[in-house]
């Protein structure tokens, strides 16, 4: 069962997410829909459990396709979960209708990546920042509205207020627009702020200023924050705790200091090694995971990071497509004639894209299954350290095909490590 670190005694839990799943159905082709064929679904968030304590900043860090943005939207009640719950102070957002969500929106606010898109181009800054007050009917008259808007603008550093209040978004720089968005987010006095890549679109010389402003707001207004980003450097600076996400799941979660000083999951380690540093003494690390984040429609079996993981071993979920990837990798290094000869052995490479622990590879007409077995053996001898072979039970020839039997893959659960949790078989006592 997934576990999570218990909230510190005395600190109230603001958000409690339990086994949250958000699946998006694919529409498929027109004909497919007509015939009622299932086009499959993307498991954007696939069983996430976490909690946020009052006053805490939790980072959701991952690459594109990790599900961090969908998770963030689910925290705001903007997407309906397929299963699981998102509880804000005991109220499950998943079951609420729009009208019931509205009062909660005063307590939960959001900031998105592109401030230009978040502001109505036809609304001046004063109207935009005051808009939530009017929608929620929280001001008696114009004077009170103006005073509160000006307070918020001062708070985010848009001073002198007179200079900015009557401006339209297009007249402001990116940093100033993001300040206006922050002013609008804090004007209702929220408790929780969900910020999705709030500084990614800003120039590097401004990022630090906006982050500093967010730190100030968090301290002065006693905010709890969820900070969604792909940028490990700002997460390290801004967050108390970090959850690393990969293909819809949390693969590692823990205090920021521990995650950055002693990353446990191979994916976290790879991400940290890949961040370019303006440090003239650092040399390039060559050990990068191969490939890219796979398609969420049909994620790899077992641990979904296993095809890219340098430490993967027997139970990580090896399957047919990994053999194909290995062959294609090999062929980028062969000269054309050798490649042509090897490729000609196979009846259809697409047959290798199967799930499950048994792979049957048919030889092309006039080629033998034995020659495929011999090729695989040659590949194995050429690079015995390739992780894939740790998951191969045996390679044999049967019924005119080359058969590869894999160790049955096991999906790793989030299990406890020192300060936090990690979903990786390397830390599972059962495999030690």
């Amino acid at each position, binding site marked *: 069962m997934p576990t999570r670190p218990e909230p510190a005694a005395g600190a109230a839990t603001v958000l409690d997410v339990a086994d949250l799943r958000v699946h998006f159905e694919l529409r498929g082709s027109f004909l497919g829909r007509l015939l009622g064929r299932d086009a499959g679904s993307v498991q954007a968030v696939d069983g996430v459990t976490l909690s946020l304590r009052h006053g805490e900043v939790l980072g959701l860090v991952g690459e594109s396709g990790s599900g961090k943005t969908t998770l963030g939207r689910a925290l705001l009640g903007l997407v309906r979960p397929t299963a699981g719950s998102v509880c804000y102070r005991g109220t499950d957002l998943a079951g609420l209708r729009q009208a019931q969500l509205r009062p909660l929106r005063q307590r939960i606010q959001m900031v998105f990546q592109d401030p230009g898109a978040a502001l109505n181009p036809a609304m001046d800054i004063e109207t935009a920042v005051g808009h939530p007050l009017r929608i929620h009917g929280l001001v008696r008259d114009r004077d009170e509205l103006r005073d509160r808007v000006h307070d918020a603008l001062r708070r985010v550093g848009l001073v002198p207020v007179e200079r900015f209040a009557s401006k339209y978004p297009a007249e402001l720089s990116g940093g100033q627009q993001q300040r206006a968005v922050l002013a609008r987010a804090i004007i209702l006095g929220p408790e929780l702020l969900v910020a999705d890549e709030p500084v990614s679109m800003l120039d590097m*010389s401004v990022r630090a200023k906006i982050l500093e402003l967010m730190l100030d707001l968090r301290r002065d207004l006693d905010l709890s924050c969820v900070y969604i980003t*792909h940028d490990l450097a700002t997460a390290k600076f801004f967050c108390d705790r970090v959850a690393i996400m990969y293909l819809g799941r949390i693969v590692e979660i823990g205090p920021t200091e521990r995650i950055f000083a002693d990353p446990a999951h191979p994916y976290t380690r790879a991400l940290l090694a890949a961040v370019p540093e303006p440090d*003239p003494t*650092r040399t390039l690390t060559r050990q990068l*995971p191969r490939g*890219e984040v796979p398609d969420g429609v049909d994620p790899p079996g077992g641990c979904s990071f296993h095809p890219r993981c340098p430490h993967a071993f027997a139970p990580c979920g090896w399957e047919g497509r990994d053999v194909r990837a290995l062959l294609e990798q090999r062929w980028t290094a062969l000269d054309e004639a050798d490649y042509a000869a090897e490729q000609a052995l196979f009846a259809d490479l697409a047959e290798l894209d199967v799930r499950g622990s048994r792979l049957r590879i048919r030889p092309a007409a006039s080629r033998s299954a034995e020659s495929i077995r011999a090729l695989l053996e040659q590949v194995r001898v050429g690079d015995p350290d390739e992780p894939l072979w740790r998951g191969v039970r045996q390679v044999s020839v049967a019924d005119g095909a080359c058969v590869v039997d894999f160790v049955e893959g096991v999906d790793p659960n989030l299990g406890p490590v020192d300060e936090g949790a990690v979903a990786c078989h390397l830390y599972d006592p059962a495999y030690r």
Partner: protein
Amino acid sequence: MTDEAVLRVRDLRVWYGTERGPVRAVDGVDLALVPGETLGVVGESGCGKSTLGRGLLGLLPEGAKAGGEVRFRGTDLFELSGRALRELRGPELGMIFQDPLTRLNPLWRVSEHFEELLRTHCPDISAEQIRHRSLATLRRMGIPPTRYRNYPHEFSGGMRQRIMIALGLVLNPAVLVADEPTTSLDVLVEAQIIRLLADLRRNFDTALLLITHNLGIVAEACDRVAVMYAGHVVETGDAREVFAAPAHPYTRELLRSTISLSTTGLHYIPGAPPDLVDPPPACRFHPRCPDAMQVCATRDPVTVSPRPGHRVACWLHGPAEQVGAGGDAPLVREEIDVADEA
């Protein structure tokens, strides 16, 4: 800066006409590119990096004017006819853009992109040669030959960028300009592409101009760096040396304001890059410079060379006799509002 330079830029100026007057996006830049080297160009948005990159290839947007010279192996690109210039682009001058998806034709297979490119520039090439050259370049970029006949949408973002780089390299150009080639990619894929670009130096003789806002990428993939501010190159030199000991205050502040894994405190440069219609007089950085002196507000800085191969345009580095009496007194800066920012 020896004479082996494949591309030499002297006093390059590019300006756009606007209603408010000309925008001087590149304003007197001198550069040289040596075969096989990677030169990184960094600076904030709006400092003229992309305009410089396009100017080097003789590519100017509609309504833009250019002055100065860009000499490719001795020939000034601005004096060539449109046709002669187009014949250089591809075989000699290549470009890689930020977003690969918009640069690949969605209806063409990868193979067709290569066929079109190679047939255009080498009319006598045989189908067999096209295949051979394309596959060889793709392999170097890590694209398996099994994917040669696939369509662009069948590849991931990182693979598409690898294909773009292969298309840029297949003609073996002498100069390649890459404008933010990794900005739309994920962290790990970005790192893979940076390593690929860093390896270019060893495998090809191509001189690479890498435009980026990410100082980390420059430190990891470039031999030399050129720091741009408001249309000027304010500092050039060996990338590692410049980052270890930046001479220009702008370079130093840019490095300090970069948030990296080793960041322990937040720093930023007050204010924003100037409007290039009406840039500040003398040193353009002086209104934002923490080290500004009297002379910085009154006279254009002189480019000096504190060490071989390193050039900086800043009065802090002299020449002392030109700073003049009292010129080195601190400049009282105008207050910059917190919200005056990029």
